Structures are given as structure tokens and as C-alpha cells.
């Protein structure tokens, strides 16, 4: 079966002041798959996610999602557009003045006309889906790092978006929680029958969940393929990164 494209970065360049983040970057996101973007810290991986949901606009090039060139949308149209995309932040970005239930219910309360008991059922089911049943009434500050990340996942998927973006979902967590979160991402993608883009440099979890991997280096995608293809790559930059070696073309320091 032919693979369909869900989103595409087309020759995108973006700078923040003097710092060039992306330079003629092109990346295709295949539908119904998990694409992981790997790269050095500060390489611009999170910026790719923010381009895909319109939180950043490219200086040049096009960002196409669901056949819409989102760089042409007005700020107000962008706000509506983002409802179709889930976004899980690196530090979850839960609203600290709201309970976990209120955090996850917020998109439903604002975007749908569901009754309160239906909202309650959906929030409960989303929390169960990420293995967090029973924490509805707790405040974000009362949860551990792994629990906060999972609550962030639940909020990202509560409106059943067909595209979910995960920013560093496992960074800084122990191996058991990392495995749990990786499994959760796989399960959520299957449940939503959708597409996920995961930015990470946690190679173990990428090998476990990725259908496709793209490596970002110096503002461009320098390698793309399945996990197997990438591991066999002859590109010395890819090999140095995957092996975590100090010796190679990637400058260390």
C-alpha cells in the first residue's frame, strides 16, 4: 500500500536573530506512523514540532499539514487549526492553577458542547489510557515527573487529534518510566489510528517505537529512513551520533 503524506516541511529556513536554526530543511511525515526526529541538543528539533503546529512561522519555505499551507494562515485561523493537532510539551506545561482533571477537560470545555458528565467520562478514559486513573483531583505540583508527562499526553490526545507531536517525552526520566512512556506513545497512536512525531535523543526508546527516523544536523535533515536503514547508514555523522562517540565529524564541546 502506498504511503500517504500527512505533513511536510518544504525547504524551510528559520533564524532567531543571528542564530540559524533551520536551513533549507525538508521533512516528510508519513500518515499512520511514528516519525522520530533525532539530533544534537539545541539542533532545532523542537522548532520542527512548533513549525508543524504553527507556533512558529518559517522565514522561507512552506509547512503543509493536512494539505493546508499553514504558513499562510492568519493568527486567528491558526488557533482554530491547532485544535486538530495534539502537542505534548517537554515539561508537560500543565496549567498549575488547575487540577489534573481541569487541565485535561479544558480543550473539551472550550471546543465542544459536551455535557459535564460526558467530559468526566472522557477525561477518566484518557487518564486510564496513560495509566493515571485516580489523580483527577490532584494539582500538577503534587505529581512526579513521569506522571506529569503522562498527564500532558492525556491532555494532548483528549480531542482525538489525528496528529500528535511529542517534545522530548522521555528526557530526564528513569529507564522504567521511559519504557512506560514509550509504550504509551505506541498505544495512543494505535488508539487514535493517527500519526505521531516524536522529538528525542533517547535512542533506546526511538529504536523501540519509531517507524521512521529523521536526523537533523546543522539545520537540515541529513538522514531519513527506518530504524534499520539508519543503523546501517554509512553517513559518519549518523554513525557518530548513534554510537555516542566523541570521535567523528560532529564537533564536541
Amino acid at each position: 500500500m502506498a504511503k500517504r503524506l500527512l505533513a511536510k516541511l518544504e525547504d524551510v529556513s528559520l533564524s532567531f536573530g543571528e542564530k540559524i536554526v533551520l536551513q533549507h530543511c525538508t521533512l516528510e511525515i508519513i500518515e499512520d506512523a511514528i516519525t522520530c526526529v533525532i539530533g544534537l541538543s539545541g539542533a532545532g528539533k523542537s522548532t520542527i514540532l512548533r513549525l508543524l503546529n504553527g507556533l512558529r512561522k518559517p522565514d522561507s519555505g512552506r509547512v503543509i499539514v493536512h494539505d493546508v499551507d499553514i504558513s499562510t494562515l492568519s493568527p486567528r485561523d491558526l488557533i482554530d487549526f491547532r485544535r486538530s493537532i495534539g502537542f505534548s510539551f517537554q515539561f508537560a506545561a500543565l496549567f498549575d492553577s488547575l487540577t489534573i482533571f481541569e487541565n485535561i477537560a479544558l480543550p473539551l470545555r472550550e471546543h465542544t458542547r459536551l455535557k459535564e458528565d460526558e467530559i468526566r467520562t472522557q477525561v477518566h478514559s484518557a487518564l486510564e489510557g496513560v495509566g493515571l486513573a485516580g489523580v483527577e483531583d490532584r494539582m500538577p505540583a503534587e505529581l512526579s515527573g513521569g506522571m506529569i508527562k503522562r498527564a500532558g499526553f492525556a491532555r494532548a490526545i483528549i480531542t482525538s487529534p489525528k496528529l500528535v507531536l511529542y517534545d522530548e517525552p522521555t528526557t530526564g526520566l528513569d529507564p522504567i518510566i521511559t519504557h512506560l512512556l514509550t509504550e504509551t506513545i505506541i498505544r495512543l497512536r494505535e488508539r487514535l489510528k493517527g500519526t505521531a512525531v516524536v522529538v528525542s535523543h533517547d535512542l533506546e526508546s526511538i529504536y523501540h517505537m519509531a517507524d521512521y527516523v529523521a536526523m537533523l544536523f546543522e539545520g537540515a535533515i541529513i538522514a531519513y529512513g527506518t530504524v534499520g536503514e539508519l543503523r546501517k547508514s554509512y553517513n559518519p555523522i549518523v554513525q557518530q551520533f548513534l554510537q555516542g562517540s566523541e570521535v567523528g565529524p560532529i564537533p564536541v564541546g
Partner: protein
Amino acid sequence: MRIFEDAGRETIGFFEYVGGVAELLGDATHFIGRFAVRGKETFDQAYLLGVNSWTIVLLTALFTGAVISLESAVQAVRYGFSAFVGSAVAYGTVRELGPMLTAVVVAGRAGAAIAAELGSMVVTEQVEALEALGLSPTRMLVVPRLIALVIMLPLLTIFAEIVAIIGGMWVAYGTAHIPFDSFLDSARQVEFLDVIKGLGKTVVFAIIIVMIGTYQGFRTTGGAAGVGKSTTSAVVTAIILIFLFNFMLSFVLFGG
């Protein structure tokens, strides 16, 4: 040449700031015009920004009324103008000091709270999270605070004016033995229109406090230090603007 470069940069920065605040206010007005207002959040903000400020407003107003009375009562009695002390305190309070001092106090308390809260939300990506959920930060964060303070600041000012006049009345009695009824008779010379005009100014001050606080909060960069910087900036800018607009509005409303 460096001086010209700095002056140019400052000028551009100034217009960017004014443009940014105006754009944010335009966006907030757009949502208010469409009645896209979150009732519970607005009520909560009215409580947090308004009701929680009443003690500090009470103390400021009480001592301000008292000091005007202290300065004027003894002199007035000495020169035989004791019948005017009540109206001096009431006029000063209703037209100028009530609206302005209440606004300055609220800018220090509520304006700082707004900038600090929104600044913290920016650095912890909560504002970006709102946008990512397809929610407008203006509608969710600015509009409730704007409506809340536009309602609460005039109410706090009425409260402050009553307290200031009572404070003035006690001091006039204590220092110059001006009886309460003659103080109040004199105070009644203040026209109702003066009260309304004074309260009208507080609506403008409320808009200044919220718009500067929210704009400054949204511009926050660089973690905890950035939040502190935004908060200080919000308070200082709002207070300067309150003084500036107070002069301009008094000039227009009460005549030059």
C-alpha cells in the same frame, strides 16, 4: 554615532511597545465584542485583583484623607475658612487623589500580580500550551483580567473616597474641632458629575494596569530573573502612565 544608534533603537523599541499594547487591546476588544468572555474566570479575577486589594486601598485612602485634612484644617480655622475644609478634602479626593492613588496602589499590587503570573506562565510554556490547544491567550488570560479590573477599580475608588472623607472628617474634628455636620455640609458641595468624571478616569487606569501587566507578562524571557524584570517594568510603566493620563484626563474633564 553610538548615541544616534542608541536613540534610534530606543525609539523603535518605544513604538514597538506601544504598537504591541495596542494590538493586544484590539484583540481583547474583539473577543469582548463577540461576548467571548469566560464568566467564572472573570469572577475569580475580580476577587483576586479587586477584593483582595481592599485593605491596602483602605489604609492608603484613610491616611491620604487624614493628611489633606491635617494640612488644611488648622490653617483654615486660623484664617476663618473652616467651612471649606470638608469641600477641600472631598474635591481633592473625588476628582484627583481618590482615583489616582487607588489606581497607583492597585497597579503596585494587581499589576505586579498579573505580570508575574503571566510571566511565569510564559517561561513554563503554559501560554504556548494554550495556543497549542487552539485557545487564544488573549481570550483566556487578558479578557477576564481586563473586565474584572474595569469593574473593580471604580468600586474600589468609591470605597476609597468614602474612607478618605471619613478620615479627613475625624482629623478635622481632632485637630481643628470642626464639627462633623459642618464638615459634611461643606463636603456636599462636590457635584455628582465630579464623582462620575473621577470614576471615568479609573476605567482608563484599569485598562492601563491590565494591558501593561499582561503585555509585559507575555514579553517575559529568561526564567525567574525575567519574571522579576517584567514585574518591575509593568509596575513602573503603569504608574508613570497613570500619572500622565491623570493629568491629560483632568485637563479635558475638569477644564484647563
